[in-house]
């Protein structure tokens, strides 16, 4: 490895050799008021995993209810609350912060060779803001009756003069509003960090693609989230004061709410998927031992996606009574999104070509990502084409499509990243065999769950239905069965990580023999990430510049697992 220190001055005389961020300070307090981006990343990780668990429980309840025609578990109204909470929690508390705030917080400064993010206090603040938002959402769950769907469409969510949502919607609104600021502040922090905190020698063309992806995400977070905030303010005011902006009873326009909502929520889809793609770049390069093909094209496709994401929100509204002119423009622009997405997939394939492909568990997630994202992306064509969208809109086809993108994309990216960086984070290896078993179950379960939903959707099964016609019984049964397989896969994974924490083998600094910058430091990293500020002399994927030994054994210590295979 060609890491050179600029000077030989030790970073901090008080640090003993082998000191790392986990052992540097001890006690609960040291965690709660930490300014270390790594610890904040871990805090986020724990929180989003809890949110994932909660959202997952709701998902299982929803699927169980739908397993049989008629009432299976719960009343129709309870069912409505379940899918609302599943959506709201998964979107706002899990997917959006998952990769940027949890993995990104941990990895981004290390990859940059920085000691911390630009604004550590802001970073901690954004975590607590996120927690405050979570508390509000939990209050909403406890006081009950949130049954608006995660989209909070007006006028149902206004709940005035119609059979609408009760005041618990206000708690959701508040929770999402607050959590949104967490997202904004993370974005601000990452952008400033990427601009100003890069290690010497790391010019923009040497930036790891993970960071390019997170940078593009941050741009969206900063520019789109405030629009959600103002939408929620208006909704809140409409609910409490009846200001007459979205409420047709008072001359407002409910379709305007959808414009406001999707101006944020469409870019938010890219807040979700771009980091997933970003992780996959790292995984593909590491486990193929090959420089990413078309580095600049991938980097620019991330930025392009971020910008395009602001231009296409109307494709959620083709059936909503929007004008035909707007429909035309939005449909045309929507197709442009396919271009950068396609570029990424093609480039990943080209990277695999002539590589040296290892099938370690993170790579399985990356390959799974490509497969599922391909399906998710191609089914997007059905929805971008207006005439077919009219038929498919608000059916299970849409549900399946966005689960393929968000679960098959983001969650697979997140899990791949979690497996990949787990040794770096906790300093321990995990049981590769269990990891592979759980991957298989998750991959299988996911496809069984959601592929059947494509067929239901095109056959005309509307979404958010508590009950269904006879003809959909077999498919709903299949879908619910898949959900259980998925759940078992996740349980095994949870056990696997738990086992690793308890009794995992000690991880070497670079278990995957990666050329990435973050593997240059110890596992777990030094409190300041690197003992000495690294000077970057090559790109993050320049495997051809690595020595034979580095490529096969990792560095600087041996990694038994990889070596045994070799």
């Amino acid at each position: 490895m060609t890491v050179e220190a600029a000077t030989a001055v030790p970073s901090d005389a008080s640090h003993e050799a082998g000191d790392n961020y986990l052992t540097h300070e001890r006690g609960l307090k040291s965690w709660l008021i930490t300014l270390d981006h790594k610890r904040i990343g871990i805090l986020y990780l724990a929180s989003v995993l809890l949110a994932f668990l909660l959202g997952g429980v709701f998902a299982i309840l929803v699927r169980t209810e739908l397993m049989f025609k008629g009432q299976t578990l719960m009343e129709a109204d309870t069912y409505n609350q379940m899918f609302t909470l599943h959506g709201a929690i998964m979107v706002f508390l899990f997917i959006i912060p998952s990769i940027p705030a949890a993995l990104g917080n941990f990895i981004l400064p290390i990859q940059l060779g920085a000691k911390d993010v630009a604004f550590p206090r802001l970073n901690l603040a954004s975590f607590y803001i996120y927690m405050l938002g979570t508390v509000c959402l939990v209050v909403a769950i406890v006081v009950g009756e949130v049954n608006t769907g995660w989209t909070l469409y007006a006028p149902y969510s206004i709940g005035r003069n119609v059979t609408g949502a009760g005041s618990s919607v206000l708690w959701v609104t508040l929770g999402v509003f607050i959590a949104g600021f967490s997202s904004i502040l993370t974005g601000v922090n990452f952008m400033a960090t990427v601009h100003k905190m890069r290690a010497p020698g790391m010019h923009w063309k040497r930036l790891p693609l993970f960071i390019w992806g997170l940078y593009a995400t941050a741009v969206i977070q900063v520019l789109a989230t405030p629009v959600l905030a103002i939408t929620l303010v208006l909704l809140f005011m409409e609910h409490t004061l009846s200001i007459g902006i979205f409420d047709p009873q008072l001359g407002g326009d409910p379709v305007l709410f959808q414009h406001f909502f999707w101006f944020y929520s469409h870019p938010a889809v890219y807040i979700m998927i771009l980091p997933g793609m970003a992780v996959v770049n790292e995984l593909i390069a590491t486990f193929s031992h090959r420089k990413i093909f078309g580095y600049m094209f991938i980097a620019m496709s991330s930025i392009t996606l971020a910008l395009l994401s602001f231009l296409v929100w109307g494709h959620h509204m083709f059936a909503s009574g929007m004008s035909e002119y707007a429909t035309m423009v939005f449909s045309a622009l929507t197709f442009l999104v396919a271009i950068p997405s396609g570029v990424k997939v093609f480039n990943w394939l080209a990277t695999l070509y002539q590589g040296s492909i290892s099938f370690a568990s993170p790579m399985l997630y990356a390959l799974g990502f490509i497969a599922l994202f391909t399906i998710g992306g191609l089914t997007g064509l059905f929805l971008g084409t207006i005439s077919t969208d009219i038929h498919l809109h608000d059916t299970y086809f849409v549900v399946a499509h966005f689960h393929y993108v968000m679960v098959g994309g983001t969650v697979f990216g997140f899990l791949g990243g979690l497996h990949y960086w787990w040794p770096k984070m906790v300093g321990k290896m995990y049981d590769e065999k269990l990891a592979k078993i759980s991957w298989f179950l998750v991959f299988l379960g996911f496809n069984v769950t959601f592929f059947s939903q494509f067929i239901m959707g095109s056959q005309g099964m509307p979404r958010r239905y508590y009950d269904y016609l006879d003809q959909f019984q077999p498919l709903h049964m299949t879908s619910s069965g898949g959900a259980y397989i998925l759940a078992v896969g996740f349980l095994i994974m949870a056990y696997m990580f738990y086992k690793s924490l308890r009794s995992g083998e000690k991880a070497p600094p670079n278990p995957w023999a990666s050329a990435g910058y973050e593997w240059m430091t110890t596992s777990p990293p030094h409190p300041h990430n690197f003992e000495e500020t690294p000077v970057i002399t090559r790109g993050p994927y320049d495997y051809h510049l690595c020595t034979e030994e580095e490529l096969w054994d990792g560095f600087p210590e041996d990694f038994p697992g990889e070596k045994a295979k070799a």
Partner: protein
Amino acid sequence: MNPEPTIQMPAQWSTIAPEVDYMYYFIYWVSVVFTIGIFGSMGWFMWKYRRRPGVKAKPTGHNFGLEIFWTFTPLLLLAYLFHAGFQGYLHGTVVPDDHVEIRVRGMQWNWEFEHPGGVIDTYNELKVPVNKPVQLIMSSNDVLHSFYVPLFRVKRDVVPGMYTSLWFEATHTTGEVTGCTQDAQCGEGQSCYYGNCIAQCQQDSDCWEAIGEGSWCGGQVGDETRICALPVFCAEYCGAGSGITRSAFDDPDGSGRNTNHSTMMADLRIISQEGYDRFLEVGPPPPAECATTDATCEGEECKACWGQSLYQSSGCSACHSSDGSPGPAPTWQGLWENQRTFMNGAEPAVADRNYIRESILNPQARIVEGFGNVAMPAYRLSDNQIDAIIAYIQTLSE
């Protein structure tokens, strides 16, 4: 009779369905080609370049031409998709001139259909003529709804405070056209419905056999005879009944239908033009338990029965009692030909046929002394229905 449904798409029942399906399958095959290409090459690379001792990855080169190729050639395909999709959309938007206009009102959780001439159909039942363009002009009273008929491939949100519209032209009837006037004139297991013989059913699969897959066994749940129809869904989420409730419409027939977003479904019956004209003439039919023949209700007994049914299903019972007990509105017991005094300055009058008729159609015209607190909504009922209610009120005074 009808084009068979495929594993992916339901049967085609409207004139625009083939065009939508063509686009669907076009994209489907494009996707299949791409999927095979991507999965195939991925699988091949995974096998061919799996990690083996001593075999290094080849350094990545540059191929600017290739990058440009796969960045820009998909644009051609995408341009075509946009063009064709938008064209199809416009076909679904611009209505042919010789269409029938039907006014649709969505409300939690019922559909109300008003036909030309002001005939308001039974809740959740839409009759349309076959082979005739039908334009629906829709708006909603409360929250967003969405009118969706999968077999027609049409969908449009129903937005409060705004009109939306869609049109379709059905290509098949949901029954056989025989010009019947009584059930006896139709085959076994069929009902005579405005001159059309429509299959009776117990469950959806009966209708699949009779008129094709995707149809369903509609009608009011609880009726003895139910007849086949196409399902109309509300595709946009419109909530559940846990908030403020409007009791009258929560559970019109006590069967558990129409209490929720997922129960907001309607029956779509496609009948012959003659049958439709007849419907416009006589209005919606009495419930099956009251009459044996369609749409006509001969005899006071049938009318009173119908009236009682309407008393329940239209929500009158929420305010008007039928046994003389006090309520927010005057009781119907002993109402007939009773002397009424009014609070807003109108002359006292006798509750006769004309008075009851006015009270239903324009309830605020004269308000009975002591009942100023509740504003009764105006009801749009056909003449036959009003007669039935009057007959029912008469029976309560005997």
